């Protein structure tokens, strides 16, 4: 696959798995985020999905899930809460349909996997390794670890690394580990999953939130809590991308509230080699495709010949591998 830019002259291509022989080459750094783009086909008649850098599927689980009761979404200030409950056909139902469909597509398709036990992650990854049409696996570690009393995998560096190692052991597919913003020390988690064999890191998943229905005197979501996404969380996401990008040497994929080229550039300059768009697609389905053209034009105007030149430009410690300096500055001075 060679890089194709439709407008402008700058090279938009980016490899998200430079250390993996199977590589993960994107034509441009704009991806659709997990849970916000179904399995790609939902948007096939709406936008030219083949132009995307890549898309990530809805989270797949070991068994089929009916999802949570309604209501599943609530709007919050400049954002939304969702508690879909991972409604999906399960890995077995999934492999019957999508790998073959995606194999005929030009756009790289990435499968997002969620589980509550390390073995289940590995089981799904092993099944996906044999399938056609799959460009990479994104591991969602924002799940409760049953064997640890439901403590979230993604809050703990060692637990996140364990999942990564297990998946790495069963597949040569590029692996992106998607971090949870609930981790106090996101940098330690990032360093641990890098060491455990992740090809790239994506962040951030939603932050756990809640809204109360004052009239009915109960939480608005049937599930009580949900995940906050959208512009409201952008400053938190940019900060975490900035920190992680200066601490690891593998590519970082940023997301959280991207609604415009300026938002995407914040992530790129902070050190993201690509971005995912989730809630922004709900609000404006044409957004990711439009951003490809806008980025291309911006790079030309600013005199860059390649997208890679802007990654990390605003990040003094970008890929310095020294997380501690930054962590200290962050906690002080607020």
């Amino acid at each position, binding site marked *: 696959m060679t890089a194709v830019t439709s407008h402008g002259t700058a090279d938009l291509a980016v490899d998200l798995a430079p250390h993996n022989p199977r590589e993960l080459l994107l034509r441009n750094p704009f991806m659709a985020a997990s*849970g*916000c*783009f*179904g399995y790609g086909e*939902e*948007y*096939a*008649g*709406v936008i030219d999905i083949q132009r995307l850098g890549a898309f990530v599927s*809805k989270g797949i689980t070991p068994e089929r899930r*009916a*999802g949570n009761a*309604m*209501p*599943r*979404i*609530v*709007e919050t*200030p*400049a*954002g*939304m809460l*969702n508690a*879909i409950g991972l*409604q999906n056909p399960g890995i077995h139902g999934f492999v019957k349909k999508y790998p073959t469909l995606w194999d005929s597509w030009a756009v790289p398709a990435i499968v997002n996997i969620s589980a509550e036990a390390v073995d289940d992650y590995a089981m799904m990854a092993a099944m996906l390794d044999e399938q056609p049409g799959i460009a990479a696996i994104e591991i969602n570690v924002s799940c409760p670890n049953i064997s640890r009393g439901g403590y979230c995998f993604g809050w703990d560096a060692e637990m996140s690394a364990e999942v990564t190692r297990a998946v790495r052991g069963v597949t040569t597919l590029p692996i992106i580990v998607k971090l949870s913003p609930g981790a106090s020390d996101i940098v330690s988690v990032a360093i641990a999953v890098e060491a455990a064999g992740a090809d790239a890191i994506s962040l951030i998943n939603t932050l756990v939130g809640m809204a109360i229905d004052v009239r009915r005197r109960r939480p608005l979501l049937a599930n009580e809590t949900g995940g906050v996404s*959208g*512009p409201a969380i952008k400053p938190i996401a940019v900060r975490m991308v900035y920190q992680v990008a200066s601490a690891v040497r593998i590519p970082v994929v940023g997301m959280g509230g991207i*609604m415009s080229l300026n938002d995407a550039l914040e992530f790129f300059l902070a050190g993201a080699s690509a971005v995912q768009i989730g*809630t922004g*697609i*709900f*609000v*404006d*389905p*044409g957004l990711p495709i439009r951003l490809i053209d806008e980025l291309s034009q911006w790079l030309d105007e600013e005199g860059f010949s390649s997208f890679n030149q802007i990654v990390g430009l605003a990040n003094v410690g970008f890929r310095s591998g020294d997380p501690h300096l930054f962590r200290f500055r962050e906690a002080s001075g607020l």
Partner: protein
Amino acid sequence: MRRQLAQVETTGTSREFESQVLAVDHTMGDAILLTVSAPTTVVQRLNSGQFFNVSCRFPGSFDPLLRRPYSVYRAHQQPSSLTFLVRPFGRGSAWLAGRTPGERLEILGPLGNSFVIPPRAQRLLMLAGGVGVAPLVMLSDVAVARGLDVVFVMGAADAAGLLPASELRGPVEYVVATDDGSRGHHGLATEIVGDYVHWADQIYACGPEPMYRTLRTVADTHRINKKPGVQISVERGMACGFGACLGCVVETRRGMIASCVDGPVFDFDEVVF
């Protein structure tokens, strides 16, 4: 007019367009009729029951963030435009109801499936609860144009909340109920709808969830051999409008179904309340 009843295509034809407010008219209570320009391709392939997702904020603001779905109240060919019935309720609809002619709106659609008039149906009964009247007005227009018989039952809190009879076109029998008895039947619309169930070949309803729960009892009481069929339009909070987020599902006998693509119109008997 026949073209409006062609088989619904959902996502394949859905698209975003920038629209201009053409007119704002006051109607039932504080609700307004908002007429906005729309591409001819959109207006021509539209079916009654479909809806549009409208951005309810000014450019540069991200609050409120999500688009709001509005059913089509009426579509017009000259000029190519759509009318929505908007009741100012929360912050999105209040913003929308405050627009003035000439302002621009971002609109996405048409979305969703639509009401179906079965080939041999001649007598259509429509049941509207409050602002839920919107999609039934378009459906009634279509039925009248086809020469079908329509009985239109509407309920509201008071007389001011009722659709003015002049808004219904052609020979439609319009029956009303108000909670406070200020016009028509004193009580709920569901209390009078039973009178027409045996007459009707097909029933259509759009209103709040409690209305559907009462309707269930009415239907169970009056329908002997599961006829006439009932089609209802269900209201769910939505995010994407394309079946991608699964935030708008309706629990049916077939499982959790996205109401933005396989709804908002559902076979009443399929829905689990």
